[in-house]
């Protein structure tokens, strides 16, 4: 009769479970390596909202002579060269066009002044509508820059349209 060895446990002595942590750590490192290698920080994307007219095919610019005296929209015409770069920016008004050069700094100042004049110190009043008449060849990056300047100047209703064939292109 074989005598089986028995482990003799002393009465009252608790048995501590032994959990191997090393393999678990190995797997965690594997998982972490996977997520680190597949991690790709994305640039923050945001939107510029537009205020488009409801009529279809509304690509034709509003003639500058038909400005409503009661609600004067601010109309900015942007001319472009064949390579898509901006040539000149003009503000169309009843009193004559204002040349703003080709830099957006002057445009921003002009838009700010126009918005302030329209509000007349009343902060609850909305800025007038801002319409951009843009040459078809203008680089889209510059289009966004124009809309951005309009937004920064405080205009909520911005509408870009195509410049009339007579006024577009190189100037």
């Amino acid at each position, binding site marked *: 009769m074989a005598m089986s060895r028995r482990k003799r446990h002393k009465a009252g002595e608790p048995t501590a479970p032994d959990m191997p*942590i*090393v393999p*678990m*750590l190995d797997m*965690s*490192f594997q*998982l*972490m390596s996977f*997520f*680190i290698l*597949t*991690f790709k920080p*994305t*640039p*923050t*994307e*945001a*939107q*510029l*909202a*537009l205020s*488009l*007219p*409801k*009529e*279809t*095919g*509304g*690509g034709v610019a509003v003639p500058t002579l038909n400005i409503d005296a009661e609600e004067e929209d601010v109309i900015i015409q942007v001319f472009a060269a064949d390579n*898509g770069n901006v040539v000149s920016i003009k503000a169309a008004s009843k009193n004559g066009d204002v040349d703003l050069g080709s830099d957006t700094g002057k445009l921003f100042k002009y838009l700010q002044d126009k918005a302030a004049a329209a509000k007349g110190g009343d902060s609850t009043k909305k800025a007038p509508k801002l319409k951009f008449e*843009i*040459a*078809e*060849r*203008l*680089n*889209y*990056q510059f*289009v*966004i*820059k124009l*809309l*951005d300047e309009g*937004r*920064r100047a405080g205009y909520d209703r911005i509408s*870009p*349209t*195509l410049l009339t064939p007579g006024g577009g292109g190189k100037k």
Partner: protein
Amino acid sequence: MSASASHDKCEPNLTPLLDVVLQLVMFFMLCANFVMESVNESIKLPEAIAAKALDKDVRDYLVLNVDGKGAISVTNEVFETPAKMRGFLKNQFDLDKARTKPAEWEKGKGRSVIILRADQKCNFKQVNDVMDVCRAAGYYNLQLRATKKDV
């Protein structure tokens, strides 16, 4: 009495290390984005300072990706010209109308917001043609997407 030679093993405590590693894993898991948001990553967006994040109230939106050649990609479909997209937008418009209550539809609610992701190499005509097609289909709420630029 025999003194048994005890070999003292010096093992580092791995439990805190495992805790930290699991924290890192959780971080990267939360940051990982497995769902493609119908975004064409080859399109390089222009930058804008005043661009705002999408309103949380907007639940239904459609992302149109326009590459430098003027081709438009929406989810899994690619349209070479904006005119070829008319049928798709019309179907989308009908879908929006079908799932919106008539009373709300009359008030102007229920239409998807169109988000335009156009490459910075596009010219204005390419983008304007897409906007015209969207308006012809009945979508007037358009937003141009740009990369947020810090001042």
